[in-house]
């Protein structure tokens, strides 16, 4: 029998979607959360309240680094911004001759400072940054492998989108088609509606996601033209070359006038990043990079100044059509330029993508259950998909809530505290997977979804009991971040609770009809 083109596309859509569906679901959840990574980080470090002026904070950070790490190879400073109240600094320690650079712990080469250059005492956490990194680096595995895996998933996503568009016969005729309470038909409607409504976003986010790691996935262009990838990056993003120290000491000029000058030449845009190479030496340079929140293109311009004199040495603007295109694509993906309105639109589109992937996964089982030879005892593959669906769709949100709860409940002085927050996420996630494996499928859905809903409901309560900032105090003092976060937790809790109730109704109906059937059998 010759298959039609559309049928073969439907096959492709079904199986590419299924194979990476669970990973894609996790990428959509954490990637969507990452649009608010700074806000999540602020919530997870409730001790930080005051904001500081970026220019004086940078100067204060330099004073701190001069006392603490005078011979470092270089200092890296991220000034405070509207979305992050503290100065983040890290440094590259001095290399010892003849010794390979030793791997050091994060806290040995970095610090978080307030506006006056004093280290802040704050609970150890990786905050929203972890969720951002997880959506392309995963966890507990080498980053390079993770990125190949994530890249393969994104490639399959692109295939699933294109084949999905071809499979969906009536994109326009069925545009507003959503029928409730019709089993498989309803799942298909939900999948279609979430897919079609934000289709341009999914195409953009998947394609640009691949572009962000294109040099890893398609290295051959670079390999053919450059001796090593380092030489390539050196040419594309100059200013990385290390100049040896001369040994002649020279003080740094105040950084404030340089920052003001850079900001003026970028039409008032803020400073995103300051790097000081060879600090304290007369070969010192200060590189100032434009903040990413003022232009769509992600790769900001930078200016290089001589450390002792403050004269402008170099001005770097990304050049060439290819680089500009890549820069805009990465910018579109990360959305760092987006203001509040657009950021929420990104976030809601991301939620749409999460529902699209989730409903697609469920649809796979709904469609096949009726056709099983013995629906009461499905084969192994079917059961595997069922259980993984529960683990992904209910388990990951539960893990996310556990991550937030762990942030409030783990003791401040705990060793490896930040890592244990992350472990909590995966422990709960794995727990839900195990639970789903040993419970009847329909019960497992109800229980896992209720569990996730309960954990999200617990977040505002535990927060109110452990720290002094919450929704109520926020409403009084205008601390909108804490109001919004609690609201988001309550909304997620309601949404998961609603899903649990729906699942419970289905379960009730199924047990009733099963009872009916067995009764008929016994009376017959």
């Amino acid at each position, binding site marked *: 029998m010759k298959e039609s083109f559309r049928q073969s596309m439907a096959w492709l859509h079904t199986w590419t979607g299924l194979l990476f569906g669970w990973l894609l679901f996790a990428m959509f959840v954490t990637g969507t959360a990452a649009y608010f990574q700074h806000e999540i980080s602020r919530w997870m470090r409730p001790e930080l309240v005051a904001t500081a002026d970026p220019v004086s904070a940078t100067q204060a950070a330099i004073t701190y680094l001069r006392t603490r790490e005078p011979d470092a190879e270089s200092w890296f400073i991220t000034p405070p911004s509207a979305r992050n109240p503290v100065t983040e600094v890290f440094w590259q320690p001095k290399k010892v001759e003849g010794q390979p650079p030793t791997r050091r712990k994060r806290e040995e080469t970095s610090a978080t400072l307030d506006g006056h250059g004093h280290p802040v005492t704050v609970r150890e956490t990786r905050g929203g940054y972890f969720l951002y990194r997880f959506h392309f680096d995963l966890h507990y595995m080498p980053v390079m492998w993770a990125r190949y895996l994530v890249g393969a998933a994104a490639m399959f996503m692109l295939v699933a989108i294109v084949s999905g568009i071809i499979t969906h016969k009536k994109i326009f005729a069925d545009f*507003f088609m959503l029928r409730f309470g019709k089993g498989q038909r309803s799942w298909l409607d939900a999948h279609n509606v979430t897919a079609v409504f934000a289709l341009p976003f999914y195409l953009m986010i998947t394609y640009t996601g691949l572009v962000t790691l294109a040099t890893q996935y398609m290295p051959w262009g670079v390999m053919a033209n450059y001796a090593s990838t380092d030489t390539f990056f050196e040419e594309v993003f100059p200013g990385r070359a290390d100049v040896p120290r001369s040994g002649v000491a020279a003080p740094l000029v105040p950084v404030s006038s340089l920052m003001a000058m850079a900001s003026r030449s970028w039409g008032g845009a803020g400073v995103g990043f300051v790097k000081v190479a060879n600090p304290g030496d007369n070969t010192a340079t200060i590189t100032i990079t434009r903040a990413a929140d003022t232009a769509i293109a992600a790769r900001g311009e930078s200016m290089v100044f001589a450390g002792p004199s403050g004269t402008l040495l170099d001005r770097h603007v990304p050049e060439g059509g290819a680089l500009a295109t890549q820069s805009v694509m990465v910018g579109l993906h990360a959305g760092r330029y987006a203001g509040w309105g*657009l950021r929420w*639109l990104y976030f809601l589109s991301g939620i749409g993508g999460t529902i699209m992937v989730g409903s697609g996964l469920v649809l796979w089982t709904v469609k096949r259950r009726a056709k099983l030879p013995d629906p009461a005892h499905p084969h192994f593959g079917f059961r595997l998909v069922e259980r993984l669906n529960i683990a992904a769709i209910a388990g990951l949100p539960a893990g996310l809530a556990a991550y937030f709860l762990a942030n409030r409940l783990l003791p401040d002085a705990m060793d490896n505290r930040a890592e244990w927050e992350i472990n909590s996420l995966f422990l709960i996630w794995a727990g839900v997977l195990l639970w789903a494996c040993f419970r009847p499928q329909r019960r497992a859905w109800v229980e896992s979804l209720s569990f996730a809903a309960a954990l999200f409901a617990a977040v505002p309560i535990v927060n109110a009991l452990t720290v002094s900032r919450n929704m109520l105090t926020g409403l009084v003092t205008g601390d909108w971040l804490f109001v919004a976060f609690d609201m988001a937790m309550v909304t997620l809790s309601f949404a998961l609770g609603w899903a649990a109730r729906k699942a419970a109704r289905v379960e009730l109906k199924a047990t009733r009809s099963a009872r009916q059937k067995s009764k008929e059998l016994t009376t017959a």
Partner: protein
Amino acid sequence: MIHIVAICAAILGFGCLCAAMARHQTDMLGRKLPSPVQQQFRRAGGALLLVALAIDMAGLGIAYGAIAWFGHLTTGAVMVLAILKWKTA
């Protein structure tokens, strides 16, 4: 503010497009439309979506506005679907 205005235009636009579809007319308007009127609704809907684009580009800049427009279209379509479900519930 621009976001809200553009979303309103998108809701009106998708609302007209939805009302122009035979299967949703009774739900949206309570009656069937003759086909020339249906045609007018369709044109008005398309025009309103372009108006949303114009509002976005004028208010937020050409590039930024174009990106925001896609988000506003999504929001508008979701709202119209919500209205449709609410009217039939």
